[in-house]
């Protein structure tokens, strides 16, 4: 299996107070990896390291075997939607066009091929009829789709999403996850989220990040991972999990919520 993202012994942040400690991660092609962790646990920093926006203190980062500044060309980055974006006078199609930036040299205009790919990306995310709408008139979920379309327009090998469902209602969340699941057939997806429930039902592998990364190429979240990542307010984050992802314990408890509290008690 081809490794598309590789982090080896990566430390980042400030020398005295590292935000990321000794991160080792090999992401395989066509994986759908979800990273969860508390706020301030380094999720955003890890994302910035992968995009070459933050230089790690130590360690090596490779994207498709290239250094990040080269490799990031193959990453379609989907940022979190911000309220501030609404004010910007820009239409959907112009946002998606930006996905083509790396493909066209400075001073050159977008050409017919660019327009075709942009249109295709809009169709893929179900926004084909809204290309001429100003971004300020869209709902949160629609804007998230536009950002996904922009990433797709860059013809990425990897999709990197920062909290794609942070500011949208649960119905829209599911439709976005369904879209990602579909896209995952042809590209690797890495997603940062605090939404443990959705992550566990859609992703293929899960990592827990709180300065250190717990990742086992599996979608099972073990109590140990949770404990070490969240220092155990497990009830809270486990609430509303649609699918059972926690391994059974010997006591055979069936309620997930009860299950987690008991797993904490074990600690």
């Amino acid at each position, binding site marked *: 299996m081809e490794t598309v993202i590789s982090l080896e012994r990566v430390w980042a942040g400030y020398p005295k107070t590292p935000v990321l400690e000794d991160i080792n991660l090999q992401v395989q092609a066509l994986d759908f990896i979800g990273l969860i962790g508390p706020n301030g646990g380094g999720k955003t920093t890890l994302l910035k390291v992968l*995009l070459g926006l933050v230089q790690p203190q130590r360690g090596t980062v490779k994207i498709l075997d290239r250094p990040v500044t080269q490799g*990031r060309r193959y*990453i379609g*980055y989907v940022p979190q939607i911000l309220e501030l974006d609404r004010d*910007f006078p820009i239409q959907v199609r112009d*946002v998606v066009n*930006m996905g083509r930036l*790396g493909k066209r040299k400075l001073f050159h205009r977008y050409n017919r091929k660019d327009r075709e790919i942009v249109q295709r990306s809009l169709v893929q995310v179900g926004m084909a009829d809204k290309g001429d709408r100003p971004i300020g008139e869209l709902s949160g979920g629609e804007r998230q789709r536009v950002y996904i379309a*922009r990433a797709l327009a860059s013809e990425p090998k990897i999709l990197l999403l920062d909290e794609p469902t942070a500011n949208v209602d649960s119905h829209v969340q599911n439709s976005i996850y369904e879209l990602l699941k579909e896209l995952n057939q042809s590209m690797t997806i890495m997603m940062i989220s605090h939404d443990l429930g959705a992550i566990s039902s859609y992703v293929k592998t899960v990592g827990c990040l709180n300065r250190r990364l717990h990742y086992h190429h599996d979608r099972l979240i073990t109590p140990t991972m949770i404990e070490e990542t969240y220092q155990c307010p497990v009830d809270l984050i486990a609430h509303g999990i649609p699918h059972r992802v926690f391994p059974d314990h010997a006591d055979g408890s069936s309620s997930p919520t009860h299950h987690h509290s008991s797993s904490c008690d074990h600690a």
Partner: protein
Amino acid sequence: MVLPRQPTTILHPATMLDALQFDFMQNALMAGILVSIACGIIGTFVVVNRIVFISGGIAHAAYGGIGLGYFFQFNPIWGAIAFGLISALGMGWVEQQTKQRGDTLIGVMWAIGMAIGIILIDFTEGYKAGLESYLFGSILAVPRSDLWLMFGVDCVIIALIALLYKELLAISFDPVFATTRNLPVRSLYLVLVGLIALTVVMVMQIVGLIMVIALLTIPAAIASQWQKKITAMMGLASLLGISFTTTGLWLSYRFNLTSGATIILVSGIAYLLSLGLKAYGDRQSTQPEA
């Protein structure tokens, strides 16, 4: 013996058309149009990038260059352009390094530039002709040669914006995404602040450095209330600028007022009207249908 005071009869043509028979009036009108085009285009980027503060800083720091011009006896406008560009690059760099937290440093650069200008003018011997025009503007005293300079600056601005449109739009909308596409975001940003500097120096001659920001941002700010596309915003802002300078010019001529301040007042009133109109329109459209 005291003569009875004669009523001063100043020729006040009632219409702009009558006034236009004067060369200086033609020049003033032309200057207003040329400056408004630059303001419409660049002001749009200033407004959407929320860098009004930097633009104000550039305008005031440019005064250092004016002082330099007076002291070394060259055309102060070249000094202003040089100082404006240097301070723009400095402030742009600070802004990039500190990510929105550079306002103190930018404020300091703003003040130092201004202070250098004042001190240099203190050191300059003799009569300092036209100094006021840089502070308060003098659209009525713009010579024909300056019109050509303005025309040149307009051409540079239009050409660069047209060539770099997709990049400048991208760094304005989402600099992080632009970086991941390996765009030279920093250099592009410096090009943008450089263009702001050129525009600011140009506008300074019309309304003076104290009110530059108003003419740079008010038309674009109004346009942003009604247009949802950058290019449309630029066009509308330019047209608004032209109508404000023309109206202001005529009013200042008709009632013998300071031209720069009149233009700004016209723009400011238009802004408030637009704001009210927009708020009214929004309320109408959000009201439930009967």
